């Protein structure tokens, strides 16, 4: 009873407090990248509302490109202004951190998105429909596939230009995600970039059934996992009485600190902490696509429109790993000895699982999906290092990996037959004979995935393994090495298929892309080679960006 009474008194006190609400202080400059993107997204919606249909496409593309470029410029400016290192601090009432990792990741995400926009805007691959060039998005997503409504939409040459603002919203969320400095912001950001992605997945022009299925799967599982994350947040809140990273970390570090005997039940109760932490971790691991939370990855990657898949695969990973890093390094360092072994297990499962499962895949997009799972495992190895080296190696790996992925999926969009993209591996037989250049480029990407020296993949892999080894996780490195050996097997299989096997008579054609996709691929190749041959500059970048603020 007494406890209740005391609580009651506290409650009334809280209510009766004189209502002077302190005005929040927002550092607009430091938040400019995010603000630009979100603002542009809203403008994009307005465009959809008010501009005539024919001019929307160009307006949207222009808007997105400009916005992303501007945001990137802002990031650079901030970094140059020392916000990455010396002036790093918490903005927006401690809700958002502006520090090295945040800026680095935001920069990466923005670049990736910029390139993704190119692939989104590609209009030369799909055959001309009724005299109109079309992109790879549904004419009218709402229309029933094959229904007359869709026919009409196609005839009218409709296109879903909404994808661009949607994309921008997603990007906005992704920018916040890795820099979120309290669990609430984390959760909101998660939803802000997830929901648009669910929509994007459903918008494929071809094979809409698959597209919609992927969307529904992604949505349900995503919501499911975010529910877990939220519950975890609740528990952590219950543990620490606050959701700000710093606050929680503080509570963890000086253990169960008695505020009030009445609350001893929950305050600093490690069970809450452990379960809550685990559930939040799970939510993030889901986004990362780590075993055993990977199930959605192959299906979604396969069903979604390939440009979207590329975007997801690259950007989502970056954002999610950013958040994961911050969580583990800022919030939970105090309980490192609890989560490290667990993450060990997850990392090993992820590396091996992804590699082994990929061996028997027959669809190129699914194959890449599983490969991305394996790579998630490698990155986790770096995360586990729990050292500054670990952070910077992960940052570098993410940058290296995302460009390769984008490029790879961009190439996938080129190989087409009557039914749209020919993603079944058997269709790729003898590609090297038909169009050596495309095959060669794809081979380069595959080799980068496989981590062959002189490609960015190798540099990244070496960086994370090095970090892991230095932090004493030698056996993790060995497992990683073994799984990359297994992984090599199926990358090689694709290369064999492309170069050494006979082209099928009814094989796919290789569409000649416009400058947009070409740029995307070119950038991918360039990044692969530059980061492979002369990674030093970027390693420095990641190295300097390797410090989180508390």
């Amino acid at each position, binding site marked *: 009873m007494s406890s209740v009474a005391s609580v009651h008194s506290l409650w009334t006190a809280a209510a009766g407090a004189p209502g002077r609400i302190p005005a929040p202080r927002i550092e607009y400059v430091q938040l400019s990248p995010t603000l630009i993107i979100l603002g542009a997204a809203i403008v994009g919606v307005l465009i959809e509302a008010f501009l005539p249909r024919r001019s929307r496409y160009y307006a949207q593309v222009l808007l997105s490109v400009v916005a992303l470029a501007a945001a990137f410029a802002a990031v650079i400016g901030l970094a140059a202004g020392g916000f990455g290192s010396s002036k790093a601090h918490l903005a927006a009432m401690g809700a958002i951190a502006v520090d090295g990792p945040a800026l680095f990741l935001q920069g990466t995400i923005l670049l990736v998105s910029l390139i993704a926009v190119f692939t989104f805007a590609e209009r030369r691959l799909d055959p001309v429909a009724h005299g109109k060039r079309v992109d790879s998005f549904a004419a009218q997503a709402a229309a029933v596939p094959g229904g007359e409504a869709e026919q009409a939409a196609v005839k009218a040459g409709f296109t879903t230009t909404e994808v661009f603002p949607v994309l921008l919203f997603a990007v906005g969320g992704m920018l916040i995600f890795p820099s979120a400095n309290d669990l609430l912001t984390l959760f909101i950001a998660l939803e802000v970039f997830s929901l648009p992605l669910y929509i994007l997945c459903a918008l494929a022009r071809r094979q809409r059934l698959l597209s919609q299925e992927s969307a*529904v799967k992604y949505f*349900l599982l995503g919501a499911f996992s975010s529910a877990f994350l939220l519950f975890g947040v609740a528990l952590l809140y219950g543990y620490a009485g606050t959701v700000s990273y710093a606050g929680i970390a503080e509570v963890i570090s000086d253990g169960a600190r008695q505020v009030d005997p009445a609350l001893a039940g929950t305050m600093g109760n490690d069970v809450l902490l452990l379960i809550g*932490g*685990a559930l939040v971790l799970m939510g993030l691991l889901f986004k990362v696509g780590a075993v055993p939370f990977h*199930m959605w990855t192959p299906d979604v990657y396969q069903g979604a429109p390939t440009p979207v898949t590329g975007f997801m695969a690259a950007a989502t990973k970056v954002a999610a790993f950013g958040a994961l890093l911050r969580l583990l390094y800022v919030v939970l360092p105090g309980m490192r000895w609890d989560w490290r072994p667990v993450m060990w297990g997850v990392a090993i499962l992820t590396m091996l699982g992804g590699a*082994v499962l990929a061996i*028997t895949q027959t669809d190129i997009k699914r194959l890449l999906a599983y490969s991305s799972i394996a790579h998630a495992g490698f990155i986790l190895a770096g995360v586990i290092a729990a050292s500054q080296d670990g952070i910077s190696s992960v940052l570098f790996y993410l940058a290296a990996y995302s460009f390769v992925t984008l490029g790879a999926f961009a190439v996938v969009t080129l190989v087409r037959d009557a039914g749209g993209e020919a993603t079944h591996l058997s269709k790729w037989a003898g590609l090297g004979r038909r169009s050596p250049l495309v095959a060669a480029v794809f081979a380069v990407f595959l080799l980068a995935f496989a981590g062959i020296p002189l490609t960015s993949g190798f540099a990244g892999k070496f960086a994370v393994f090095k970090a892991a080894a230095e932090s004493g996780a030698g056996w993790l490195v060995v497992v990683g090495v073994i799984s990359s050996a*297994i992984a090599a097997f199926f990358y090689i299989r694709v290369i064999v298929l492309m170069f050494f096997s006979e082209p099928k008579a009814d094989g796919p054609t290789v569409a000649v892309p416009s400058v947009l996709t070409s740029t995307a691929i070119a950038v991918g190749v360039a990044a692969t080679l530059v980061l492979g041959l002369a990674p030093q500059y970027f390693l420095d970048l990641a190295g300097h960006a390797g410090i989180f603020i508390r």
Partner: protein
Amino acid sequence: MENLIALLVAAPLVGAALLLCGGKRLDRTGHWIGSLLAVASFAVAVVLFADMLGKGAEHRALHQHLFSWIPVGGFRADIAFQLDQLSMTFVLLITGVGSLIHIYSIGYMEHDERRRRFFGYLNLFLAAMLLLVLADNYLLLYVGWEGVGLASYLLIGFWQHKPSAATAAKKAFLVNRVGDMGLSIAIMLMFTTFGTFAFGPVFAAAGDASEGRLTAIGLVLLLAACGKSAQVPLQSWLGDAMEGPTPVSALIHAATMVTAGVYLITRSGAIFNLAPDAQTAVVVVGAVTLLFGAIVGCAKDDIKKALAGSTMSQIGYMVLAAGLGPIGYAFAIMHLVTHGFFKAGLFLGAGSVMHGMNDEVDMRRYGGLRRYMPVTFVTFGLGYLAIIGFPGLSGFFSKDKIIEAAFARGGTEGWILGGAALLGAAITAFYMTRVMLMTFFGEKRWDPEEFHPHESPKVMTVPMIVLAVGSVFAGGLFSVGDAFVRWLEPVTSFAHGHSPVSAGVVTAATMVVLAIGVGIAWLMYGRKEVPATAPRGSLLTRAARRDLLQDDFNHVVLVRGGEHLTRTLVYLDHSLVDGAVNGTAAAMGGLSSRLRQLQTGFVRSYAVQMLGGAAVLVAATLLMRGV
């Protein structure tokens, strides 16, 4: 003067290079070039010999250091020659007999379109053989050793279109390789023992080495000798080697190459003298082989194979002598030289017979040929008398000395060895008489329609005559005041053996057994008609026809066994070593396709797994804390 030594080797080497790389344009002149260079080499040898005679016994050895060959760490091999009395003897024999046989071959190979290459090979052989006897260290000797092996391989297999020839060549090379193994191991042993393998230092230091090591070295050297000199147990190749053209058989497989083993043992005397056990092994091998060869020789109807058997047995004599140490070395070499003369002569004779009989080799198809080819008959006859040791001819002097020396070894060993030597002499007399009778006497057993026996051209008969002369007088010449023994003494060191039985008795005994042997042969082949087809013959005869079954043994054990072994290994390599790897890959694939089943496509099952994952995650975290 010593700068001439290199010339000895160079001349035939140049010839070989010219003839083998020269191409068709040398086809017409090739054989002349070859013979000329051989003769040139002989001339140089003579010059050096004369020069050597001019000096005092102790200062005769010449040495020529060309350049440092393989310097690696403590391992030093030089290209350097050493010409002492022993080498000189061989050089003269090799170049002399070699030149004669070159000339003979001009006629013998006249109709062969690959004559140029034949002479190229002959020159190559001469070069290698000279290198062998001139080398001043074992490694260089090894080069010559294998070189002659190569030449013999090429020459045995000269008529490659005949599978039998190709096989014989291969066999010869392989069996020799086994011997070569011995030689290379010997060199390694010397290197580890003395840190060098040059004759001078090794022999000088031999005294300081433990007897065990010396014995080991001696035994492996013996192995080498067995390979090259067709001694038991590595004798099997010599019979088949007769597939080669007859001049080759005469030069390589009678006069020179096959005696290299004897050279090796004699040259390594310093080591053997200090390793009595090794010496015992040598004499045993020699004694066994001389009987073995002789018995085989008795059964063969192929004239060349019969002669091959006799070669084996004669070399057995030399090895036996060499094994006796200082009391035998000189006689071994002496017999080697005389044997070089008469056996070469015999082979050339046989060749000439075959030349006249369209290359028929079966003596049962000969008979009464003395009327058709008188020169051949006479020269062959002289060679025959020489080899059976007819008093006054070469063989008599050399072989007789060896028998004495054998007895002189003393003790039961002496008796056994001496007895074996005597018995060998008897058998020799028997089979040579048999050859003689079957070939030149009795009724002609050939079809006059088919065969038109005729005497060979001058170019072939002249060498035969020269050799015949040699086989008549050489022995006597050498024995005048033990000239030969004293000539060799500085190198091989000579000791007088003390035979339990006086020299006279031995000689008498030899005469007796000789008479017996000839007599039996005459009773069997001279008096009654020789059947044109071989009778079944006694068990021993049949065994002897097949080289005393030793070849069959090889076939069953080595050839068959080897085939099985390799086949099994090939299978295992595929199924086991490779299978393991492919198996792993397959296992991975299986695992993968099994794991794929988890990806059912049903959202709810995914959700279940996620939930399970979450549960595990939470549980694990709690466990870590031990809560």
